[in-house]
């Protein structure tokens, strides 16, 4: 039972991060390798606002979520916008460069010590009983519920709202979408904003559960196999991929060797790449026209 709870929490973490990869890839065909760092930035944002608005935890959370959204849009407007139309290689390399820049800047700005934003918010991480003898931390519970809410929101947004439909159109065929009067730059900026927003929320919640430390970036990278196993352009796939990766990781750690934690997602990834490289729900790439 405790294993099932662990799997659910880990799957929620991966799913919340993976949807950022999916949103950006699906809309602009760019693989963002700075996602782990952007996520960590969201976590540090919470730590900063928590000490700024001491005593008003809700204000602090709202502000930091808004900050994450703004940062995502800014990353697109200031950096990635110049890379639209360049080769995919250049765009991916730019995200790598952004990642390392952010990592260095965050260490310089916030230091290397582990921070606990939950304590700064004035809350404690209670351990709640669920079912037969299993326990879940309050932050873990919020993580699972938050992930469900984010995914429901994203599905509704992409399916029913005007901007959601525009986003899907831009992802399907940017040229046609632009000719129908959709502002591609606006849509791309929105996708980056949303991706950083969800990533930032993931970072904040993980930080509440376990504190902010350098391994947060590794968690961001480990969520990437989840996105790919499900299919890089499918949100549903990201959800399912996260569950698969999380189950494999938790079960192998429990029954085989705890040292395997860092490699399990990548083993699954490699197996998937050999068997069905476009993922469970991903669309196979179309024919390439000359």
């Amino acid at each position: 039972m405790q294993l099932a709870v662990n799997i659910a929490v880990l799957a929620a973490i991966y799913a919340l991060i993976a949807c950022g990869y999916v949103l950006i890839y699906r809309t602009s065909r760019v693989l963002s390798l700075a996602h782990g760092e952007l996520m960590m930035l969201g976590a540090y944002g919470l730590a900063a606002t928590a000490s700024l608005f001491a005593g008003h935890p809700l204000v602090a959370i709202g502000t930091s979520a808004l900050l994450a959204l703004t940062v995502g849009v800014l990353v697109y407007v200031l950096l990635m916008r110049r890379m639209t139309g360049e080769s995919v290689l250049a765009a991916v390399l730019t995200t790598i460069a952004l990642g390392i820049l952010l990592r260095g800047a965050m260490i310089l700005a916030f230091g290397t010590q582990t921070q606990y934003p939950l304590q700064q918010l004035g809350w404690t991480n209670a351990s709640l009983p669920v079912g037969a003898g299993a326990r879940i931390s309050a932050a873990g519970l919020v993580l699972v519920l938050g992930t469900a809410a984010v995914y429901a929101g994203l599905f509704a947004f992409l399916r029913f709202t005007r901007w959601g439909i525009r986003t899907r159109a831009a992802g399907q065929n940017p040229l046609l979408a632009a000719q129908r009067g959709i502002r591609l730059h606006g849509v791309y900026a929105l996708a980056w904003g949303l991706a950083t927003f969800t990533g930032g929320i993931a970072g904040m919640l993980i930080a509440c559960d376990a504190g902010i430390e350098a391994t947060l970036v590794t968690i961001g990278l480990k969520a990437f196999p989840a996105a790919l196993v499900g299919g890089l352009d499918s949100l549903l796939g990201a959800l399912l991929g996260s569950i698969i990766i999380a189950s494999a990781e938790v079960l192998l750690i429990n029954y085989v060797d705890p040292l395997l934690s860092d490699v399990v997602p990548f083993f699954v990834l490699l197996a998937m790449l050999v068997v069905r490289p476009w993922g469970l729900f991903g669309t196979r790439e179309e024919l390439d026209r000359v």
Partner: protein
Amino acid sequence: MSAPRSSGYFRTSYARDSALVDTRTQRIWLAAFAAALLILPFLAGQFLLDLANQVLLFSVGAVALMLLTGYAGQISLGHAGLLAAGAFTAGVLFKEFSAPIWVTLPASAAVGAAIGFIFGLPSLRLRGLYLAVSTLALHFMVIHAGQEYETRRGFSTGVVIDAPISDPRAWYFVLLAAAVATILLSLNLLRGRTGRAWRAIHGREAVAAALGINVHWAKLSAFVVSCTLTSIAGCLFAYYRGFVSADAFSLFLTIQYVAAIIIGGIGSILGAVLGTVFVVLFPYGIEALMAMLGLADRLASVVFAVNYAAFGLVMILFLMFEPQGLVGIWRRVQAWLLLWPFKQKPVGR
């Protein structure tokens, strides 16, 4: 291989066009450069010699990455993992069987080739970024295997290797030979059928396939060649440092190599070498700058973070404003000198 001169010099045969060294001026410059390289270790001090050795060692890996990313257009995020694979092959063989270097070096190369083949296999199924993704998996697996070996055998801090040569001057010539051999091999591959196939798949895979190029084979061969060279570089790295540890091969090392080829200029062997010089000297430059600004004491504990941030910033600046890298700047200077006093080529040249 170089751009035609604007001085009424024409190439009249294909052999001439593909020659590595073409004109007499080039030959003279090359001879002068080679002489300078050979004299250098006898003039340089200990510190400078170590720097030169680092540059030579780094350049082998950078040229290998340039073949894969700069020419064949495949991103690799597992470069540190490959170096680790070569280094650990040498370390394990040395520790377990006390094998000499002439066994470990070919063994590292073989391991690199095998890894390149296995991890290149996903690219046979799909186009795009999938090779990059599988290399990321490669990185984590190799590092994990290395850590497992270290903990299982009780070398928790790392494996110590005795190098057959210890004199830095002797090392200089060994590494110089390795770097020159790598560069010559690369240049020759690039001017032949293989290199043209790599450049074609970089340009556009569908067109390359339509021209009769076996895209899968070209990708896989680029990957295998690059991995083999990188693994050899890893083996040399292990002997040069005399020490192998999984912690030395972090993702930041990969990023340093990627930075070297971006800053040097994608799609040029000269670029890989220039980028290497830049990347190796960069941390020392940052240190000097911090000392000059009087920040050295305040930032002493976070020097690595300053390096990270500065690396990222320089990479972004180059990607945005000078995508051709240092080579682009060099070519512009060349063109400016050639055309002077004109600003552009006269009409109907």
